[in-house]
Structure formats: structure tokens, C-alpha cells
């Protein structure tokens, strides 16, 4: 699991950004909560003890001895809590005897009622103030301060020492701290949730262009668009532009190669034509030679055609972003066939098909495959040829039916076989299926020969397809 998590962190930009942000948010909130809580507690404690000291000072100021030498207060202390029983604020005066034993509770606040504060034995030096925690009435924890006061001016002349004690219930201090802490943490948690939400939104919004880029690339790969489309932020735009440039260069290279291949074909075939014509019009005595030349020229032509088509397809099948609508290609070929086979007055019927059908690949290659198959069907048909196309998921199914002689099952096998083992045969078989089989294989499709319901041969061509329409160009 740990491995997986660290793997995810390394792989995902989003997780990385989120993890960093969340860590810092948590750390800052904990530090802030702890720091603010501490600060407040110290403040409340200081206030608590300051109040106790105020009581202690008042007590010190009011302490006098009466005529009998007993301690008494000149005026009662002002804080009303000191007179309400068990109010939480108390004072007490103990006398410290000469032998250091103490007579506790000599004088007590009214609030103490019948309780005597049990104070740990302690004798603060003159002027010192000591702090203690003790258990007070009803078992409550009290914070207390004490101070020793020595009175020399006594009726009997013996100096006396008193311990003055001011105490208060610690809940007077802890309650505000607790309620403050509660409010503080609630506020911090709300703040934290807000920050986390903001971080999530920021990460998702910030990374949205990457998701868009991903979708755009997917469209290029599937051939829906020829290049990356759409507006991207300035940070990503250079990447998009570079990628589009590479795509354009790619297409240009293929186009150049295709033109060069065409030029090569032209340059080769014109001399071949001259040679073949010269041979046929040669002296009848050299008939043997003439036939040889004509045959070899024919072979050379087929080889040139076959390998040029293959080479072109090898370049184009690897091109991303190509998409060829099917219907215009079929219509063009049907127009051509009607002209080429005009003598035969064939009925060429294209069954209705969705206009959105498209081939995921190059137009020339598609034309080559469909042209050869349609030409075959026209050659072998007696009256009718039917073309059908449909999509099956990501695949394009194109069917050619003719009402000709058909082809025996064994022959079908060998025709397809020859297409597969292209290098071992003379290319361009009588059916012209070799190049079709090769091209479909390059595109990951297939050709199957069957009996046609029209009586002749049915050729089923399977090709990678696209059914979604291309997005409208702005």
C-alpha cells in the first residue's frame, strides 16, 4: 500500500499538489491552534493571579490588630464574591506561631462559611508571594496566593506573624480557557475546511487545461481532428503549437514522399511504355524476344505499383489524426466505375449509409482498397454490383456484392493467402486482392470472401472506423 501511495504521488501531479497543500494547511492550523490556546491560557492565568494578588493586597492593607491583639480587618474587602458562601473566591488569615506551627483559619472570608482552607506548611519570607494549588470547599481545586506579614506594633509588644491567603476556584480560570479553546478549534476547523476546498478547486481548475490537452490529443490520435484545437493557457500554448508543428511536418513529409513516389512511377513507367510498344511493333521474326519484353515490362509495372502502394501505406498508417469520410470516396469510385465500365451498363447500387461513417486512415489508401475491390466486382459482375457500409463499434464494415460467377471456396483461400505472403508471389493477382489484403493488414483490418446473396462473390472489408462526426471547423 505504501508503495502504491508513493507511486501515486510520483505519478500524479494533482496528488502531489494536493498532498503538499494539505500538509501545510494542517501544520499551520495545528500550530495556530496550539499557539493561540497557549497565549490565551497564559493571559487568563496571569489575570487570575493578578486578581488574587489584588485581594491579597487589599487584605494586607486592611489587616490590623484590635485592642486584644487579635487580627481584624479595618474594612471588609470590596469584592462581593468574598461574602457570598462558596462563591469560589476566598481569603483566610493564619497566624504563624513562634514554633512555626500555624493556627489556621484565624480570620476567614464569609464565603468560606465553615470551611478552613488547608494550606501546605510554608513560610514565605518577608515580602514574598507564594502560589499553591489546594483543595477547597466542596472538594474543588483552588488556586491560591499567600504572603507573610509580620506585625511588630502589637498591644503586648510581641511581634506576630500572619499568613495571608487569597484563593479562588480554578474553574474561574479554566472555564474561559476551555470555552475559548472550543471556539478557537471550531473556527480553525472551519478555516481548514475552507482552505482544503480552495486547494481542491485550485488544483482541479489549475490542472483543467491538462485534462483538455489530453482530450484533444485523444481526438488527434483517433483521427477526429487533424491537429490540437482550442484555447490553452499561455503556459501550455507553446507545447500545443510545437505539437501541431510536428504534426504538420509529419503530414508534409508523407505528402513529399508520396509525390516523389509518384514521380518515380512516372519516370519508370514512361520508358517501360516505350519499351513495350517497341517490342510489339518489332520484327515478327523476333516474336520470342518481343513476348519476353512485354511480359517482363508487365511484371515490372505490377511490382512498381505494388511496392509503391505498400510504401505509401506504410508511411500513412502511422500518421495520427487522419480521418476520411467514407461516402464521398465511394461516390467518386462509383462515378469512375460507371465511366470505366460504361460498355457493360452495370447497375451499381450504393445502399443508404450514414454520412458520418469515416475511415480512420488515409484517403489514398482507402481509395486504393475500395477501388480495387469495386473494380473486381464490376469486372466479374453480370449486371449488378451492390455496396453496403455499416459501423460496428470502432469498426467499419464495407461489403461488395456482385452477381457474377463467384469463386470456389478453395480459390478464395488461395487468393487471400497470396495477399498475406506478398514477397513470395508475383504481385497483382488477377483479382488485385493482394494489395487490398496487405493494406487492410497494415490498418489492422481484414478481407473475407463469401457467397453473395446476389449469386456471385461477396467481399467483406473490415477497417478501423469512426462514427462520430468531425467537429465543425471555426
Amino acid at each position: 500500500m505504501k508503495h502504491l501511495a508513493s507511486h501515486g504521488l510520483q505519478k500524479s501531479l494533482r496528488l502531489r499538489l494536493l498532498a503538499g497543500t494539505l500538509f501545510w494547511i494542517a501544520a499551520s492550523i495545528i500550530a495556530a491552534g496550539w499557539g493561540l490556546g497557549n497565549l490565551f491560557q497564559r493571559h487568563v492565568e496571569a489575570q487570575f493571579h493578578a486578581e488574587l494578588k489584588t485581594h491579597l493586597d487589599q487584605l494586607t492593607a486592611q489587616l490590623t490588630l484590635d485592642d486584644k491583639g487579635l487580627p481584624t480587618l479595618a474594612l471588609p474587602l470590596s469584592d462581593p464574591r468574598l461574602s457570598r458562601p462558596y462563591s469560589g473566591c476566598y481569603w483566610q488569615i493564619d497566624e504563624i506561631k513562634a514554633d512555626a506551627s500555624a493556627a489556621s483559619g484565624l480570620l476567614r472570608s464569609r464565603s468560606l462559611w465553615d470551611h478552613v482552607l488547608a494550606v501546605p506548611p510554608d513560610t514565605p519570607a518577608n515580602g514574598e508571594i507564594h502560589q499553591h494549588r489546594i483543595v477547597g470547599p466542596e472538594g474543588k481545586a483552588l488556586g491560591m496566593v499567600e504572603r507573610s506579614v509580620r506585625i511588630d506594633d502589637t498591644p503586648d509588644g510581641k511581634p506576630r506573624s500572619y499568613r495571608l491567603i487569597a484563593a479562588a476556584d480554578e474553574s474561574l480560570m479554566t472555564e474561559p480557557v476551555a470555552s475559548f479553546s472550543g471556539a478557537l478549534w471550531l473556527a480553525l476547523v472551519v478555516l481548514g475546511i475552507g482552505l482544503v476546498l480552495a486547494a481542491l478547486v485550485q488544483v482541479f481548475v489549475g490542472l483543467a487545461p491538462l485534462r483538455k490537452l489530453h482530450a484533444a490529443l485523444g481526438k488527434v490520435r483517433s483521427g477526429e481532428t487533424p491537429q490540437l484545437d482550442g484555447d490553452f493557457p499561455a503556459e501550455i500554448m507553446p507545447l500545443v503549437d510545437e505539437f501541431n508543428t510536428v504534426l504538420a511536418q509529419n503530414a508534409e513529409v508523407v505528402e513529399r514522399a508520396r509525390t516523389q513516389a509518384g514521380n518515380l512511377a512516372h519516370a519508370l513507367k514512361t520508358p517501360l511504355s516505350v519499351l513495350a510498344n517497341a517490342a510489339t511493333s518489332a520484327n515478327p521474326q523476333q516474336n520470342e524476344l518481343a513476348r519476353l519484353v512485354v511480359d517482363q515490362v508487365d511484371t515490372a509495372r505490377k511490382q512498381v505499383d505494388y511496392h509503391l502502394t505498400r510504401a505509401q501505406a506504410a508511411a500513412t498508417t502511422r500518421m495520427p489524426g487522419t480521418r476520411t469520410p467514407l461516402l464521398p470516396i465511394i461516390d467518386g469510385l462509383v462515378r469512375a466505375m460507371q465511366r470505366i465500365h460504361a460498355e457493360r451498363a452495370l447497375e451499381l447500387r450504393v445502399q443508404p449509409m450514414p454520412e458520418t461513417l469515416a475511415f480512420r486512415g488515409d484517403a489514398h489508401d482507402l481509395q486504393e482498397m475500395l477501388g480495387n475491390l469495386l473494380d473486381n466486382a464490376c469486372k466479374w459482375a453480370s449486371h449488378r454490383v451492390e455496396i453496403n457500409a455499416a459501423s460496428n463499434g470502432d469498426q467499419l464494415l464495407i461489403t461488395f456484392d456482385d452477381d457474377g460467377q463467384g469463386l470456389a471456396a478453395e480459390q478464395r483461400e488461395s487468393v487471400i493467402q497470396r495477399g498475406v505472403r506478398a514477397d513470395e508471389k508475383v504481385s497483382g493477382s488477377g483479382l488485385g486482392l493482394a494489395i487490398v489484403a496487405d493494406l487492410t493488414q497494415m490498418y489492422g483490418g481484414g478481407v473475407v470472401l463469401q457467397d453473395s446473396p446476389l449469386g456471385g462473390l461477396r467481399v467483406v472489408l473490415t477497417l478501423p472506423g469512426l462514427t462520430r462526426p468531425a467537429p465543425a471547423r471555426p
Partner: protein
Amino acid sequence: MRILIVEDEPTLQAQLAEGLGAAGYAVDTAGNGVDGHSQGDTEPYDAVVLDLGLPQMDGITVLRKWRTAGRTMPVLILTARDGWHEKVAGIDAGADDYLTKPFHMEELLARLRALIRRAGGHASAELCCGPLTLDTRNQRATVDGQALTLTSHEYRVLAYLMHHRDQVVSRSDLVEHIYAQDFDRDSNTVEVFIARLRKKLPPGLIETVRGLGYRLTAPQ
């Protein structure tokens, strides 16, 4: 029947001219697209053999210009590229047929015959008019099965009249379709050819339409 050959390779052009000439056609040649276009635009050809890979103006452009200008003569394109892309483009530009290089001369002749025949609305390679039959495949004319001996110019005049039977053909039409461009034309010779043909054919087959020209019709 007068044919224009537009082909830039001189040897192939010469071979084509020789082959078509031997098949009884009057042949003009052009070595580049611009010349080919202007010739095809001004002269009344019965068919054109057009190479697609031409210097100065490519064959598709030449063909498209002719068709845009309303020139309807049948055009057979010669292409070095075997791709269907090129064939479809050629036919969409207005070609009537195509032939891939290298080709057999017999095939070219057969396709041309078929094109010319189709342009004249004839279904068969054998053209008939009463007792007269003309086989365009071997340039043989027969009357009731009896072969006629014709000179090449006589054959051209007869073939043109047969392709346009029952139509009035003017003398200048005949001149334009039986002579190649660089031939020293003399319209009077047409009358000589007609006179010779009349001697060889059954009487009444070739009528003279006064002031207009000639008409070949089967006797009633």
C-alpha cells in the same frame, strides 16, 4: 477520324502517333500541356489521348479547362500512377477512360474505338449502313460481304461519314477530321475522295446536299 495525342516523352509520342496512324486515324501531337490545351481548344478532334504528367500544364488542368469551355470530345487519359486516387480525379475532371502506363497498343486502340463509337451513339464496333459495313477494329469495309480496297484517306472519309450517318457533313468538317494539322490541306481533294468512294460503293449511298455538304444514308 482525327485524334490528338498530348504526350511529352518524344519516343512514346512517336510510337503512339505511328500506332494510331496505322489504325487509320489522322493524328496531331503536342509535347506539353499548354500546346495540347490550345490545340484541343481550337481543332475539332474526334478523341484525345492525354498524358497526365505533362510539363507547363498538367493533364488534369488541361482536361478541366476543355470541359469548362464546353469541349466534349472523348478523352482517354494515360497515367503513370496506378492509384485509384488519380483515376477518380481524372474521371471527375471529365475523362472518359484511363489507361495505366505501360500499356498495350491494342488495348489503347480498342479503348479509343469504343470511346469514339460511344460518342457517336453507336453500340457496336461494326458500323452498318444498308449493304455497307465498316469494322472499326480492322478498318475493313465490306459491301454485301465483299471487301472494299480503300486508301487511308478514303477510309477516313468513309469512317467519318459512317460515324455520322444520316447527318449532313460539310466539306470543311471532313477536311478538319481527315487531315492532321500540319498536312497541306486542299478542300478540293475531298471531292476527289468522295468521287472515288462513290465509284466503289453502291449508288445513292452518299448524297450531295447542295450548299451544305454530304450525307451518308441507307437507300430506302
